[in-house]
């Protein structure tokens, strides 16, 4: 976990002061809405259907318990008692008043939290694997690099008015849990033939109106060159990204129109001019930032302590939860615990202030004071001792975040949709809720295996539906809500876009369609353990389409 120093704290405080003044000038009329809007967006402030929405950055998804308590406080004091965790490891509050925002932000700033650059045409929250630092398959700690990039790109004078938003993600593990291939810049840490660690640099990934998988423009970039190379990409984009049409302004369009090779050449030419300048990262520069990362002093423990085995045998519910929500940790005797924010019949990804406080307490007691936010909209306690798992489970169960559906059909990723968002065409939350009700039988859900459903309420794809195993896109037809379904999408290292299943179906039928897809899968799979998404790969869309649309 990165600990702020005086410089970091000062910057955030200065930002709050600036925003307070901007709000004052807006409320007095000195600033028009047109002049104010980009400024408030750069502080994460949206105007939604019912109220302002505030999006707070959780850099690379890492939170301290003190920070989580501050979020709970903001939820209670300035909002309606809950927050929503997003697909970019941020948190959103939906009922904020503009006039109270500077105070809310001052509160947050004291805990090292802010909404800087969580919206607007600038570089957004840099995301990574929610298991960074604790995953057994990780080759190195990615968050130090994410922090180096975060600082470099915060209030960057040259890149604060880009053609459009810019999203960067990093992974440093064999399995990409950060969906780097659908980001504007995706960075994959890996070892080259000589055993050195560096970055594969991919650009131009993204979802939305024109989804693309990112293209590799630099197979191996030495660590020292990370900032200068990213600078070269940003400068190329800032100058040549389209500004005439907001639907064609992302870097993915520039890469597509120029071609990846030509784009790479442009970047390379710019990079060669700056690579040995003041952006080159020597060991001292990296160590400087790394010095403010704090890591747990893990107790020396053995795997599979007797308490654990005993609890498994004694309580089937505990066993089920253990098998679903707990993952292996790189340190012996420890575990990674997932907290499901997908209760049956509830809105996906939300947590109440009371839940946040309770989870913060658990983090202090059992997870060295640290929590993670996953882009699947769940939380993680990353440092739990295996012997504490029974106690942790009982506590999580009481808080309502122990539904053993992580990664299953009812672990749905959904945007807020038309219930909240002014960009939406259709609702997503009630669709998600109905699907969780249909699949609330855990045996049935487990029987379907790992199955990711992603729901977006409009083409902006904040629910990442293109890369869902089942993707659901809300559209509007003659004033009615309809849903377009895709299947076979993947978000990880083997990223691919889903294929359209058939004609869009009305609101009243979408949950039925999902059940029909599930039934078709059970019928078509080669073995019970063939994953849904692999069955789709093997048999194609047609057999699913036939079965789902037979009666429609």
């Amino acid at each position: 976990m990165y600990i702020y120093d005086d410089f970091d704290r000062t910057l955030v405080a200065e930002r709050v002061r600036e925003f307070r003044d901007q709000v004052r000038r807006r409320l007095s009329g000195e600033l028009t809405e047109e002049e104010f809007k980009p400024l408030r967006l750069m502080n994460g402030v949206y105007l939604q259907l019912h109220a302002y929405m505030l999006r707070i950055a959780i850099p690379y998804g890492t939170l301290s318990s003190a920070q989580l308590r501050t979020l709970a406080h903001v939820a209670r004091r300035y909002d309606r008692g809950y927050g929503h965790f997003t697909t970019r490891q941020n948190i959103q509050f939906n009922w904020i008043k503009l006039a109270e925002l500077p105070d809310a932000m001052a509160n947050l700033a004291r805990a090292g939290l802010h909404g800087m650059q969580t919206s607007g045409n600038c570089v957004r929250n840099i995301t990574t694997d929610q298991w960074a630092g604790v995953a057994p398959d990780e080759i190195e700690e990615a968050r130090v690099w994410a922090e180096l990039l975060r600082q470099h790109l915060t209030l960057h004078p040259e890149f604060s008015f880009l053609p459009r938003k810019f999203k960067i993600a990093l992974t440093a593990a064999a399995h990409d849990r950060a969906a780097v291939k659908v980001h504007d810049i995706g960075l994959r840490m890996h070892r080259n033939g000589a055993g050195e660690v560096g970055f594969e640099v991919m650009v131009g990934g993204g979802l939305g109106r024109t989804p693309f998988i990112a293209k590799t423009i630099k197979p191996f970039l030495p660590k020292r060159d990370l900032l200068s190379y990213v600078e070269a990409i940003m400068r190329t984009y800032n100058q040549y990204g389209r500004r005439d049409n907001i639907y064609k302004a992302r870097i993915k369009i520039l890469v597509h129109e120029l071609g990846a090779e030509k784009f790479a050449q442009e970047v390379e030419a710019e990079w060669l001019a700056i690579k040995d300048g003041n952006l080159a990262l020597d060991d001292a520069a990296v160590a400087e930032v790394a010095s403010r990362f704090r890591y747990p002093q893990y107790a020396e423990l053995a795997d599979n302590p007797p308490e654990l085995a005993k609890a498994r045998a004694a309580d089937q519910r505990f066993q089920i939860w253990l098998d679903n929500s707990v993952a292996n940790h790189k340190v012996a005797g420890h575990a990674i615990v997932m907290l499901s924010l997908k209760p049956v019949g509830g809105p996906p990804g939300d947590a109440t202030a009371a839940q946040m406080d309770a989870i913060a307490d658990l983090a202090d007691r059992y997870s060295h004071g640290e929590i993670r936010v996953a882009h699947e909209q769940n939380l993680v306690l990353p440092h739990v001792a295996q012997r504490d798992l029974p106690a942790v489970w009982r506590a999580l169960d009481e808080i309502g975040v122990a539904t053993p559906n992580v990664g299953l059909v009812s672990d749905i990723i959904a945007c807020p949709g038309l219930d909240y968002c002014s960009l939406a065409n259709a609702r997503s939350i009630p669709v998600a809720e109905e699907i969780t009700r249909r699949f609330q039988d855990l045996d049935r859900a487990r029987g379907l295996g790992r199955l990711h459903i992603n729901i977006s309420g409009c083409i902006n794809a904040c629910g990442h539906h293109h890369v869902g195993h089942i993707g659901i896109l809300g559209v509007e037809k003659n004033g009615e809500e309809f849903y377009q379904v895709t299947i076979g999408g993947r978000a990880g290292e083997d990223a691919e876009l889903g294929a359209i299943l058939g004609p869009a179906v009305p609101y009243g039928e979408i949950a039925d369609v999902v059940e029909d897809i599930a039934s078709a899968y059970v019928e078509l799979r080669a073995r019970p353990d063939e994953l849904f998404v692999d069955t789709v790969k093997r048999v194609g869309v047609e057999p699913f389409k036939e079965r789902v649309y037979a009666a429609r």
Partner: protein
Amino acid sequence: MPLVKAGRIIEDRFVRVLDDAPLPDGAPVLLPAARFLADARELVLRGAPTGVIWPNDRKVAELAPYLDWLALVALVFPNFRDGRAYSQARLLRERHGFRGELRATGQVLRDQFLFMLRAGFDAFEVTKDADAAVFAEALQRYSVFYQPAADDRLIARRARLFARQRPHPEERRATTRLEG
């Protein structure tokens, strides 16, 4: 539209000359790019300072041969959300070593002054009178800067190194208190 330079509102000594109009004798002139490029030779011989308005969708590298004697390059923000001129400014200063006046024109607002200064602008055709009046104030908004740019403000990385090298308890900046 007030012109601000060195933190003060000043008279613009440059005369903006539209495409075909004759050049006023002996006066510094500010010309659109096409005219400038066409008449470059005469302009050098003219003996009075020359400025060019360079559009934000043209490479500043084209100006490289002229930067030694150009007194002024005016870059353009057609609206304040179009940030191409920030890159142009930095390239002119850092890549091409331009030392003359680098002026921000177009929609130039208070909330972007500091970004513009850091990108290398030193003169501003400020859109609103009220903003010109508080120029100096706007520069005080931030004392911490994470990244190097075209200016010489102390960036966090170096400030942190200084802090480490001088751990004397009386040194205010040296205390990088770490929260648990």
